[in-house]
């Protein structure tokens, strides 16, 4: 009887230990993105994200184990008649590049997401399932590393190199689902 009591006590302590496999969950975090634009003639505009500004992230940062699901959502408008394949790139250190060539020269750049095709002179809202498929393996790893690190990085939306493009992105949101030990 005494031995059983000790086993139960040990099990109970195990369940209450922070980060236990059983006491874990998947927490969804969303970041509203500013309106983006990208043009092969007038240049690109990036945005620096600081995950620490989100209370959801702050509450769970120390318990973060993995990134289980992620998506870039929003409305993509192609302002010219040629179809465009939109890509999202990140620099793991905050930056403020205004041209695609400057972004591509940044040693910390990583392709995060895409390509997402938008037909000429149309607006297309990316759906959540399609978006979840468009993340690159390297991009996902870099985002996880940033989430576990200082939580600060820059995002850029660009078109394919050496082609004419002009698009804008509105109602943008970055959705992350993180695995946390509770």
């Amino acid at each position, binding site marked *: 009887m005494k031995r059983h009591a000790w086993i139960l006590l040990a099990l109970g302590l195990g369940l209450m230990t922070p*980060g236990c*496999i*059983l006491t*874990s*969950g*998947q*927490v*969804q975090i*969303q970041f*509203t993105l500013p309106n983006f634009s990208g043009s092969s003639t007038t240049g690109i505009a990036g945005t620096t994200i600081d995950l620490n500004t989100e*209370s*959801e992230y702050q*509450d*769970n940062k120390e318990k973060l*184990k*993995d990134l*289980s*699901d992620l*998506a870039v*959502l*929003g*409305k993509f408008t192609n302002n010219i008649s040629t179809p465009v394949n939109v890509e999202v790139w990140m620099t793991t250190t905050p930056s403020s590049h205004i041209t695609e060539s400057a972004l591509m020269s940044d040693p910390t750049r990583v392709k995060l997401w895409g390509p997402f095709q938008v037909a000429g002179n149309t607006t297309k*809202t990316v*759906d*959540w*399932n*399609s*978006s*979840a*498929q*468009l*993340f690159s393996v390297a991009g996902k790893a870099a985002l996880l590393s940033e989430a576990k690190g200082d939580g600060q990085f820059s995002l850029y939306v660009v078109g394919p190199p050496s082609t004419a493009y002009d698009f804008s992105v509105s*109602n*943008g*949101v970055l*959705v992350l*689902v993180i*695995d*946390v*030990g*509770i």
Partner: protein
Amino acid sequence: MKRLLALPLLALLMAGGTVEAGPVGLSVGVFGGLSIPVLQDVTTSSFSPGDAFGDTGSQFGIRAPVYAIPVITFEPYFSKANYKDHEEVFSGITYTREGFDATSFGLNAILGKPDGGGFHFYPFVGIGKTKLERTGEEINKADYHGGLGFGISPAPKFSIQLRGEFSMVKTGDTSRKFTNANLGVNYRLLP
């Protein structure tokens, strides 16, 4: 994976070994019910206890209790589950995220016999392999589960099974958890 396959093989070997020593019992059963994700894709800043449970899914499967040794019944199983899509509004636009499709197989160890005459309450534990799939995400990991079952036999060779269980798919240092409730019927093949 090898370890998971070893468990059903061990059960079959034990069953085979006891064929010589005594009669081996075997039933087959089908079941269906509900499966509810626990603490998955929650928002902690606006969390309320009701948010702990995600969109309910349906579950169905087959199982075959093997009565080879006293006290413990080994039960290989195969099941499939389908979870509802999840809708959410971001920046004024409604988006839908596909729910997981799950495929599981493995082995349960039941204390006692789930079927036979009269009423039976029985605890059980199990280990298996579960594949959770949805667009852009796939998890294929070991599954640990346990729960409580209730069996009643309304007619010879037939029994009705009601079970509640907690299931955990281990994903590295964390897990995806589900609570399941299902109702099934078993048919006794042997003896």
